[in-house]
């Protein structure tokens, strides 16, 4: 697979505390990359650097190069970066004062889509794609927050997909969901990777194993090992990785 997003010598800080050290990783196109590691190892920080959301945190900063199809993301406008690199958060966060429809339409409206038929089509396609259409077709006018937790998370995925990002970042997308909702999101992920570059942070090793093609193992802000998921789980080269994937710490 060709490389979609190259991360080069990424360092990140919160105030004086350094969270990432010289992270260099290639994220492959049309594949799912799982980011694993114990709590506080910097995996969420890494993800939030990829769409430059990290710099919105007070006192936070980052250095390094991010190349999306060769374009330097740090030289690009931050709004455009986030159009190309979409994100789904740990806790479902639909806009509470908007209907299901308006939630998905929000990104399209930002891009200047005004025509009714275009909005209708864009929203419907995104919902179909997120596997939510059948469940919410009758309640497009209901508040986004009235859906169940799993539906809300898929609504947020639809919201991100509606503007056709090239990369989709997911920060522990299932950690607030029950097992059935988790399965639905995992199935959705399996489909999405045929179209997008997906990066998923997860603390659930079994999930990482199930859904990802490649896995990156973080420890104390550094990348310990990167490789195809099967290989990394069955025959890790690093002792640290082996201990972690076998549940001996973390």
């Amino acid at each position, binding site marked *: 697979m060709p490389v979609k997003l190259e991360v080069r010598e990424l360092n990140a800080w919160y105030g004086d505390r350094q969270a990432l050290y010289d992270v260099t990783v290639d994220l492959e196109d049309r594949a799912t990359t799982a980011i694993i590691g114990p709590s506080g190892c910097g995996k969420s920080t890494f993800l939030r650097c990829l769409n430059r959301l990290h710099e919105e945190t007070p006192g936070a900063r980052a250095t390094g190069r991010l190349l999306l199809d060769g374009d330097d993301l740090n030289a690009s406008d931050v709004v*455009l970066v*986030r159009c190309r690199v979409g994100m789904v958060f740990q806790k479902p966060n639909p806009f509470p004062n908007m209907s299901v429809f308006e939630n998905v339409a929000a990104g399209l409206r*930002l891009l200047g889509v005004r025509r009714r038929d275009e909005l209708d089509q864009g929203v419907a396609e995104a919902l179909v794609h997120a596997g939510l259409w059948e469940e919410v*077709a009758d309640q497009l006018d209901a508040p986004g927050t009235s859906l169940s937790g799993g539906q809300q998370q898929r609504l947020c995925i639809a919201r991100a997909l509606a503007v056709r990002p090239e990369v989709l970042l997911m920060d522990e997308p299932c950690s607030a969901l029950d097992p059935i909702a988790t399965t639905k999101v995992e199935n959705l992920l399996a489909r999405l990777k045929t179209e997008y570059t997906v990066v998923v942070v997860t603390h659930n090793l079994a999930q990482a194993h199930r859904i990802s093609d490649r896995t990156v193992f973080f420890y104390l802000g550094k990348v310990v090992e990167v490789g195809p998921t099967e290989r990394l789980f069955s025959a890790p080269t690093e002792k640290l990785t082996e201990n972690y994937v076998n549940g001996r710490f973390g």
Partner: protein
Amino acid sequence: MGVRGTPEVGRAARRADRLARLRREGLAFRLLVGVIAAGVVGLLAALAAQLLGGALSSIDRFGLGFLSSSTWDVPDGIFGAWPAIAGTLLVSGLALLFAVPVALGVALFASEIAPRRLRSPLAYFVDLGAAVPSIVYGFWAVIVLVPFLGTTVEPGLAHLTGGGAPFSGATSGLDVLSASVILAIMIVPTIAALSREALRAVPQELREGALGLGATRWEATRLAVLGPAAPGIAGAVVLGLGRAIGETVAVSLVIGNVYQAPTSLFSHGSTIPSWLINGFVESSGLALSALLELSLLLLAISVAINVGARLLVRRWERAEVRGHRRRAARRAVPALAPSGTGSVTTPPWLARVTAGRASRLRRRKVVHALVAALVVGAVALAVWPLASLVETAVVSGGSAVVTPSFYTSTPPPACGIGVSHCPIGGIGPEIEGTFVMLGLAAVVALPAGILGGIYLSEYGRNRVGRLVGFAVDILIGVPTILFGVFVFTVFLRYDRWDDQSAFAAAVALGVIMVPIVMKAAELALQTVPASVREGALALGFPRHRVTVRVVLGSCRSALVTGSLLAVMRAAGETAAVVLTAGESIYWISDLRAPVGALAPFIFEALTVYSSPNYRTDAWGAALVLLLIMAVVSLAARLSVRGPGGNGAV
């Protein structure tokens, strides 16, 4: 075996005794807080009944015609309310119109835009603005704002319309426009502070959700923040409106005090409170009854605003979703593959939009920059009056404040109307009077308020409790001059106004403080997590002891803060004190005699005495009040941050 007097039996009996005692103690405690809570409802009822009772002869005489008549003729005994009603509604409506955009700008700046380092000082400055006593605003308005509006702004406006409506008539500066502007200046900090809290309460995830979607800062605020914060902002606006409706002294100093329905923004006029404070003490008979009917109207307006706002916000919270009908979207379905199959196709229009992202972004950034500029402009508009006020106070009163004798001597006694030169005096008796009245009021009102707050938080989760909470909210919104009117008519004889006294003023201040302390205490107690209560209950403590020892203890600093803020409100209170305390420039010899205090002293320096030295003394008094407010709000801010603070302010 089983004989009386064995150790086991003795211990069991002692335990039973102890349990019975604790149960009695618990019942007594419950009774105590219940009586205080009932007292608050009774206070509201008594206030309404007292005003109604006093107004009866006026209601009897004029009927509904009172509302529409414009006459106020004391010799002939003909009275009507229309000029005061029209003035009140016009002035507070305009004030709201001016204040809301500015306050929203300040709140947006403080919550969404300002660099971190600026936020805390700005918040302190805004909170200070909300704490500045209205008499100080009024004083500043007379000295700075009225001349500025009268000689610069108003001629310009008149020129704009060629002297036509709404800018017709002479430009004196003592008019409806000035009153609206000073009111707006006074309520901006209140609305801004509460709106800022509403905006801050919106979870960060929502902002990030919008930013992650490719929104600019402003778009993220619009999409994800304003909606959830809207009910809180509406509440803030209503509170500002309530304050504007009831504001007395500042308005009475700048509105001209002519009893006529305004026909232009440059008309002299009156509002209900300004008319009350001007005529109340000297009135008797039917005129007094008519003033009490005006008071009743003011109470009705403030209750109506409070109730209306509750209903509005509740409905809003329920139906806050943008209600677009979107059935049309379903028609697009048949063209689509079922969920979960098929691959992503990008329709041509979307490809076009995506390709045009960068060029469109330039326009979006212009919008962002425009909004940011408006917001910064609003901050400048809000900061200017406050900065000018502080500057004027320091320049005009600074020399007095640094003179030690200023705090120990009395104001020059010979300086009345028409005396042009008199020596700089002091404000010793006024400081003494303020502290004596506050002390008397606080000794009763603070414990009562805290106990009432305990009732609301710990025992009031039922229908009776909701009624008490409602009464507290209403009382907090009642214009303070009405408490002055209440105490005046209940405790003092109408015909002898030298019955005004330190004691009467302390009662009025206490009545003003109790509901504020109750609300603050309830909120403070609510911040104590249920687990703390449960932990103590699980150890076998009875409920009332848990409340007193554990719950009160763990929100100490929030209670102190709430009490400080209530005392601060009372310290700057002018209208109610002017009505009840009387005037004096001497040291206190009798609590039942008239007494001087800082805020009324400033009012009298503007209305009764006119010598320049009185002005210096009055600015000195204003500066002392400002310093007290500054120190107390700083202490309050620090105490919520310190250990044991629950961040309840």
